[in-house]
């Protein structure tokens, strides 16, 4: 399988209390075509900085190599309310990526939007609504749809279900699985919920203080962790989720 993304020796430097501080501290990995790679870690471990550096949202003080083998990847954010323009109708929001890309007639754009709506299981009426008229789950579906309009090969999902209710979470995860299968989409899935990571991903990376401390097939990382920190993380999850 070919790589869609390669990251080599990536550093992201910030200044904290006038001392340099590496939010991402020498990270290397690759994502293969059609795979879901999980990135687990606690808050402040640098997972958001990593994803934002990959996407080029942070450019300053980023060193290392980020090689994209495909079109630019897209992102789904944690808070679906904040990632939709509050003043635009859903129809506009979904058309916008195509307008920016250019080369589509009005009819072609409308047809693409309709296709996408069916793909993410949203009703047509939604096109005329504003983001604040939708439920959290619907909004996240719109975000995913918008992110896929330009047909990227790689999707970065940063805690896409953490702000949602449990029942909605499972629906969105099902949707991601389905899209992954139907579009042969590669996904970098960032989450703090180890159960979700295990259910969704093929390979898993564990991040701590800007470093990737563990990486491998999910069963290996979950049940035979090499790194002491991964072991602590797994034990914590076990006490939390298993009744003794």
């Amino acid at each position, binding site marked *: 399988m070919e790589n869609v993304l390669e990251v080599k020796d990536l550093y992201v430097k910030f200044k904290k209390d006038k001392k340099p501080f590496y939010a991402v501290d020498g990270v290397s990995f690759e994502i293969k075509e059609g795979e879901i790679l999980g990135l687990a870690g606690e808050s402040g471990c640098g997972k958001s900085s990593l994803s934002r550096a990959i996407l080029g949202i942070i450019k300053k003080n980023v060193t290392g190599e980020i090689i994209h083998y495909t079109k630019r990847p897209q*992102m789904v*954010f944690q808070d679906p309310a*904040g*990632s939709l*323009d509050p003043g635009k109708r859903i129809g506009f929001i979904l058309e916008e990526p195509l307008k*920016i890309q250019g080369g589509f007639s009005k009819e072609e754009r409308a047809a693409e939007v309709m296709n996408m709506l069916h793909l993410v299981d949203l009703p047509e009426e939604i096109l005329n609504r504003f983001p604040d008229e939708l439920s959290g789950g619907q909004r996240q579906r719109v975000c995913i749809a918008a*992110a896929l309009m330009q047909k990227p090969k790689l999707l970065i999902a940063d805690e896409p279900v953490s702000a949602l209710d449990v029942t909605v979470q499972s629906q969105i995860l099902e949707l991601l699985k389905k899209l992954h299968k139907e579009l042969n989409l590669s996904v970098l899935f960032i989450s703090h919920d180890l159960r979700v990571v295990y259910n969704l991903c093929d390979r898993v990376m564990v991040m701590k203080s800007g470093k990737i401390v563990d990486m491998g097939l999910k069963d290996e990382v979950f049940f035979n962790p090499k790194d002491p920190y991964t072991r602590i993380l797994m034990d914590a999850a076990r006490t939390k989720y298993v009744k003794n």
Partner: protein
Amino acid sequence: MEVNKNKRIKLILGITLTGIIFIMLLLGIIKTPYDPMEMSSELKLTGASFKHIMGCDQFGRDVFSRILVGVKETLIVAGAVVLIGSFFGTILGTITGYYGGILDEILMRITDAVLAFPSILLCLLIISLLGGGRNTLILALGIAFIPSFARIIRGEVLKIRSLDYIYSVKLFGASDLRIIFIHIIPNLKKVLLSTVLIGFNNAVLAEAGMSYLGMGVQPPMPSLGRMLSEAQTYIFTNPSIALFPGLIIVMMILGFSLLADAVSDLK
């Protein structure tokens, strides 16, 4: 429930007061009962009567007619000032807020300097350079109003700029211009509306103040501030000619403030 009631009272009162002012503005444009410039020696300083409902001033001119025209003049000045202030303020605030960096630093220091400088003094400076009159007053007050607008808009743009939806549009490859005009400026609407209403108030007061000092609308044209300043001499003998323009200014300010408040309360 209590809160809602208050809001509704505010809105209704605000609309009523601004409505009255608006009708006066229309009358001032279409037709006044008397020529506001026509003097008459018999009618000098006569009080209110059925013919002259607000009485006549020291030159025998009908106060009501003069107020109608004065409202028009004052609103023209205030409107133009707010237009200049909000237009350039929005441009400056959006550019500095969006791009940040050195440009932001420089422009914000300049606005700091302008803000720190008393605006009356600034206006005096410009007027003494360009000569008095309505248009210079508009220019002077307009310039004095830009920094405060720029500040507010910049703050809002800073907030919007770091929202996820701007990132997501950036990831689609949108240009800066597209982001600014399609995704940022339309979302400034609400902030802009309430700032404009408050700014309008300040402009009315500033116009009145400057004309009172004799630097705005030139005689014999009336403006509310001018009329107040002219009535000053007769404040003890004929308080009514000062009372009416003053009352109208109060109504105007109160109306716009209430309206601005009600608008900013609307979700």
